[in-house]
């Protein structure tokens, strides 16, 4: 099973590389300019760098060449790119809004477009979102907005990719879940389960992991 993570620096990435014998992950050296490398983690060992990329300058051509050359396909792509700043409306500058927009929405768009041809038929996309998309509760207007945009993105993808039976779902996590002692591991377990035992009828949905907090 080939798994691709969009961001190796995200807090769930370390746990996921332990769960799967082989994980491919993007490591960004300059996220705001779309520069980084594609690496492979084998059995939780240090990653091996496979190819560098510059999404804004050369599109995804270096990645595509490498994937074609190695006949790569992915069974699951996990979009765990995100940026949270905790800034309110008045605290958020125009530049900070643009940064959040780029990381939370533009980069996932560019990467989904680049990698979709390499996702196997009946494969899946999983996007990490937040309950802030619905409740706006984090106090970060950019994050709440861009996560709700991401959820619409996933729904659109689920429709457009259904011809290839590729599914797209969202796992929405409450801010408190990330902070609990075993929170990251529980999130990773849900992703592990979703990847290992795919539910074919689950498509275009938002799965909420919040310990019941949103019931209030």
């Amino acid at each position: 099973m080939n798994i691709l993570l969009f961001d190796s620096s995200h807090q769930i990435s370390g746990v996921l590389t332990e769960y799967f014998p082989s994980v491919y992950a993007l490591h960004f050296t300059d996220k705001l300019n779309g520069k980084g490398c594609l690496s492979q983690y084998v059995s939780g060992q240090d990653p091996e760098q496979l190819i560098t990329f510059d999404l804004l300058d050369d599109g995804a051509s270096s990645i595509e060449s490498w994937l074609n050359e190695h006949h790569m396909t992915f069974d699951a792509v996990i979009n765990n790119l995100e940026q949270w700043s905790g800034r309110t409306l008045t605290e958020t500058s125009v530049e900070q809004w643009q940064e959040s927009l780029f990381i939370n929405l533009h980069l996932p768009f560019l990467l989904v477009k680049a990698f979709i041809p390499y996702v196997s038929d009946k494969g899946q996309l999983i996007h990490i979102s937040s309950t802030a998309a619905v409740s706006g509760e984090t106090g970060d207007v950019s994050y709440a907005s861009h996560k709700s945009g991401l959820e619409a993105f996933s729904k659109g993808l689920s429709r457009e990719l259904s011809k290839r039976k590729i599914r797209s779902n969202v796992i929405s996590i409450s801010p408190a879940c990330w902070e609990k002692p075993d929170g990251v591991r529980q999130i990773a377990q849900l992703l592990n389960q979703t990847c290992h035992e795919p539910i074919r009828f689950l498509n275009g949905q938002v799965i909420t992991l919040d310990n019941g907090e949103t019931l209030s």
Partner: protein
Amino acid sequence: MTRASVVLIIGGAAGIGKAVAESRLKKNDKVIFTDINAEVGNQLMKEWRSQDYEATFLRQNVTSWQDTEAVVAKTVALYGRIDVLIISAGVTSQKRLEDISEKEWRFTLDVNLTGLFYNLKAAIPEMVKHYGGDIVIVGSGSAITGSGGGIHYAVSKGGAFGLMRAIANEYSDQGIHINLVAPRVIETEMLDVLYPTMEAKGALRQKIPVRTFGTLADTTSAINFLASEDSRYIQAQILLLDGGRTYLT
């Protein structure tokens, strides 16, 4: 006799924004409306003023923070306050994911989502100075379904949901009354862009349980209700105007 409201309508020279502007002028409100198309906007202002309505047009590119700040500053300079803010500016193009270029993606999100953020960021501090006011965002049912207008359009309108809720969290206790209308298949210029032929429109109509498209009057009524005291206990909600299409089919 109630005081005339100062109503700022972003994207008020066409479609839903224009219809709302006309309805507010008929209530004798003071309407400032903006659009990127200065020719159409100035012509409308002339027409409305000839009917003795208090209408002011300001050209605005919603993707420009400077333009947006200037619109709010001029409105406050003119009337001293903003009572009602309606944000209706938007663009769409029906395309599949593989056909959406990075440029088109960015443009759609810049107009529909960043433009929304700029207008809220510029106007809310002024509204709060005068004990708040009513804000209605014109969203879209596309954000709920992920369809209609292309995935870039759905994403840009989806982003409005979280932004609206975050602002409600921050400003509900400062008099900001904010909601979102989500029209789906309303007879506007945008519907003609998405469904250009009679056949396409006919097929679409069959998917709507009430078998008719929504009208500008339907949308205007909903917006004016949300921008009024009558809806004061409705806060941070998404009002779907879709003839039952989203949940009944």
